[in-house]
């Protein structure tokens, strides 16, 4: 690759990534060498950076598909729409970080910020990755930053424990993923997705079992990121150990990135690979993912019933939601991608909103137990109603984004060929089960009397992410067509 070709690439398309990179580096420098008085405004710099990146990204709306660096980095509509989710979610989480009222060690602050941005950059690289290597690098950037973020409260035992577990499990998952990728590479002799897909679309012949092994191993490895069975067990411990904004980040951004890479690799490669002459390899492996989806929904929702720690509860609930999102992956209808996207977007708003409410209460009451919600309606009706909106959306009550997301997935599953009645049914049943633990929180808020000391007030800064999340949750619930039309 000579300098000529290098310059001929449309680097402008990478403006969002560059913005995040530059702001991240700037933050780390300012954090190291800047005056203490500047440090207060550092979070705003991060917010501004993400905001600018979103604007740069929006300029790409409707832009045709192009790729640079020899197809290793692609800008297609898929990358565009999913990057948007990552950026919006990170923006909300940054606002959540800013709203912190309890002063912790000042030194932590800057680190959180540039680690968040580094992780975000990793996520964006995953969204645009067109090569197994670039996908892997992006994923690792995301993962490594996440490991540190979980462990940043180093004097907290739970934090260190969580970080350790996350690191160990994550490393094993990485090993799985790489191992699986090596099979694919061995079979096709390339790491570029385009080339792999082309190689695989021919007859695989005796390569079929190798392809299947690669498929299974890679999927299990990536299941770690989206915390689905069998790689889900780290989730509650890590969410509990991390500070709440980081839990929210893992739950939304990291998980979205996981789905992005799964869709990219599995639909991109195996969706084109012929198998046994007629079907695609992906189509023959549908049952495998369906079983995982079933188990994930089942375990996530049932175990959530017994949780009293709010972050653990949301961790299990997020496992359940990941199970729902696997359904469109299996259904393979023309609207599957749209359904995944919409659900991730809705999930971002409602989950970050719920974490935000927990974050506010946790700072005021110094607890993460479900009892922080008892009698909330009497202490702060507004906060109780806002939490009700998020819970209703998580539970999938009509009028909220969560309902539309679930409804679309359900319809997609039933309309698919072959129809996934079992998955659709499981989803419906598990949604009912999830009512138990979501509504239990409402019972605590509205019916019980307050138990813990402390007043509950929403500070002005705290209201910003709350309002945005409520607007997103209700807006997508009442006018889902705005988002869906935008996607088309």
């Amino acid at each position, binding site marked *: 690759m000579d300098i000529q070709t290098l310059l001929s690439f449309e680097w402008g398309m990478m403006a969002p990534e560059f913005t995040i990179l530059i702001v991240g580096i700037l933050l780390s420098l300012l954090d190291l060498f800047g005056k203490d008085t500047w440090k207060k405004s550092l979070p705003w710099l991060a917010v501004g950076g993400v905001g600018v990146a979103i604007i740069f990204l929006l300029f790409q709306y409707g832009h045709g598909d192009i790729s640079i660096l020899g197809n290793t980095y692609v800008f297609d509509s898929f990358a565009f729409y999913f990057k948007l989710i990552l950026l919006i979610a990170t923006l909300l989480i940054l606002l959540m970080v800013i709203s912190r009222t309890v002063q912790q060690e000042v030194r932590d602050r800057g680190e959180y910020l540039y680690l968040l941005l580094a992780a975000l950059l990793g996520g964006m690289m995953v969204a645009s990755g067109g090569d197994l290597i670039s996908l892997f690098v992006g994923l690792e950037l995301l993962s490594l930053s996440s490991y540190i973020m979980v462990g940043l409260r180093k004097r907290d035992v739970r934090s260190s424990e969580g970080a350790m577990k996350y690191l160990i*499990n994550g490393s094993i998952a990485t090993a799985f993923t790489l191992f699986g990728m090596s099979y694919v590479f061995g079979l096709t002799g390339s790491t570029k997705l385009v080339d792999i897909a082309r190689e695989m679309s021919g007859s695989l012949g005796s390569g079929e079992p190798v392809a*299947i092994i690669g498929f*299974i191993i890679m999927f299990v490895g990536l299941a*770690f990121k989206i915390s689905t069975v069998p*790689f889900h067990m780290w989730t509650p411990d890590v969410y509990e150990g991390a500070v709440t904004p980081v839990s929210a980040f893992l739950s939304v951004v990291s998980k979205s990135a996981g789905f992005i890479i799964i869709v990219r690799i599995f639909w991109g490669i195996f969706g084109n690979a012929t198998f046994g002459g007629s079907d695609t390899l992906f189509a023959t492996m549908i049952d495998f993912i369906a079983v995982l989806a079933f188990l994930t929904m089942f375990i996530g929702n049932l*175990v959530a019933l*017994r949780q009293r720690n709010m972050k653990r509860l949301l961790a299990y609930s997020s496992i359940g939601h990941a199970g729902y999102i696997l359904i469109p992956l299996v259904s393979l209808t023309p609207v599957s991608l749209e359904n995944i996207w919409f659900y991730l977007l809705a999930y971002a708003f409602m989950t970050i909103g719920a974490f935000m409410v927990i974050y506010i209460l946790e700072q005021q009451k110094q607890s993460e137990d479900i009892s922080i919600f008892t009698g909330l309606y009497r202490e702060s009706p507004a906060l109780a109603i806002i939490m009700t909106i998020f819970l209703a959306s998580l539970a999938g009550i009509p009028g909220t984004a969560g309902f539309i997301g679930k409804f679309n997935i359900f319809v997609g599953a039933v309309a698919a060929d072959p129809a996934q009645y079992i998955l659709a049914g499981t989803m419906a049943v598990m949604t009912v*089960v999830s009512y138990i633990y979501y509504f239990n929180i409402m019972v605590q808020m509205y019916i019980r009397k307050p138990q813990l000391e402390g007043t509950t007030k929403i500070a002005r800064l705290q209201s910003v992410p709350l309002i945005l999340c409520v607007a997103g949750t209700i807006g997508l619930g009442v006018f889902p067509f705005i988002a869906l039309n935008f996607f088309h």
Partner: protein
Amino acid sequence: MIEFAWLIPALPLLTFLLLIVLREKLKKASGYVAVLISGITFIVATLVFLQLIDVGNFLMEWSWLTIGSIDISFGILLNPLNGLMLLLVAFISFLIHMYSLGYMDGDQRFSTFFAYLSLFTSAMLGLVMSPNLLQFYMFWELVGLGSFLLIGFYFYKNSAKQAAKKAFIMTRIGDVGLLIGLILLFWQTNSLRFVDIYQAVTNGDMSGGMITLIAILIFIGAIGKSGQFPLHTWLPDAMEGPTPVSALIHAATMVAAGVYLVAVMYPLYMASSLAMMIVAIVGAFTAIYAATIGLVQNDLKQVLAYSTISQLGFMMLAMGVLGYTAGIFHLFTHAFFKALLFLAAGSVIHAVHTQNIKEMGGLNQKLKLTSAVFLIGALAISGFPLFSGFFSKEEILASVWAEGQYGLFIIAIVAAFLTSVYMFRLYFLVFHGESKLTLDKVKPVPMTMKIPMMVLALFAIFSGFFNTSWFGTYIADFLEEGATYLEGIHHGSSIWLMLLATVVSLGGIALAYLIYVKNALNQENWKTSGTYQMLLNKYYMDEFYDNTFVKGSRGIGLGFQYVEKYFVRLIILFIGDLVTTFSRTGSKSQTGQAQTYTAVAFLGLVLFAAVYMLKGGY
């Protein structure tokens, strides 16, 4: 102005919201707010109507739901028929609002009453402006809700509670018919817009049998709402509501919605002679059936309620014999005189605090105005010459005769005769004879109640002249302008019919005079007779329903309760236990050991790989 027609239902809705929210603050003033806004509503309706006379037709639609290629809209349709209804409803509603200021004075839930009344008015106005059946159906249910709330207004009285419930359930039975008809129509025509339905009928898109079926199902809805036999029993009980409510909802407007529904769907009925026949027979039967019951009831409002049922029967009869304009014309005049009668009855009740006519008498001394307007109303409903009822009833008779339905004609004549008998029985017993009440028990009637009565009295006398064979058939011409399918149907009246109607009306009055003033017949003898007892007990319809449907459903309910108790609950307990067990096992496996987590992941991988290898045969 006509573009602002949407204001007409929106304004009372605004009143409703205002009064509900500011109930505590407005208190007394809420009544005046409601009267003021309903007055504005009436003015807007008048302006719209005046413009409509020039324009002839007006349609405004907004797309509401789009499902595939099917577009369901929401909007406003104005044509001569619903323009007339609009004006009528807005006018009477305004008068009743004003009357209620006096009547409901001192009630604890004064504001709530006006809020409900406004809600009803809004729904009724929305109903008549609907351009499609779905919107119609929504407002149809909303007026039902308004009626339910107002019948049960005195909810602390058990009878009122029961009556509200009964009204709701009985009309719901009819509504189910309407809903099925609506769904069938949608299935057949892929649209619920009236114009599309008419078009489908004209094009012959539906089979004759289907048209008849749909027409009958829709008519069942009309039967429920308009208190026609056999779903009429709720209407007399609905008199538990405050009297202004009886006047507005259960005499002038809502109960007429059934007739309006038939009128709106008229092309459908015209395409099915069987459906028409059923409408005519049900109408005629109800007319005479309710009139006979009205002869012996002793509750002032009950008699008026049966009279309403009977008059609605007349309207249905007219509809069934192609007397479209006659039916609507009678709806129009009936709204005035029946509202008047109820308001007059209300001011009697307001003054003497009883509804039993046996305890009244000689009230024309103390309630001069009330007595006069009641007499006007009674003359109008009896079809006394030159009063409004005379013209409209005569037109119905002419329609029946012209269709050659001589059997129905005789029934109608007898029912008309009975009408004057029971109305004048009422008049003579209440206002004539010995006063049975002590003087001081009679309260004066306030001005806010007098004015509406006087206005309505004027209309009860003169509204007939809007449509006479002598001075011009304005209403009929206007209606026919908007309904092209009516062309070629015209029932001229004849002198002999007018004479016959006069004779019948006067004969009834004379008979009532002989019995109740002159005491020419021994009344005590009848009371032991079987017929009298049967009429007094309203043909035992309530008892019949109680012993069949009500008890029957209770029995079925009881059976299901046992199924629930011993079968369903067991299953639920089992499922609950299952969920808890799984949940407990699941959280136990969460040991907190990173080794376990990894082991699970490895095991999972191995398991899946093994299954696939075995299945694939590699």
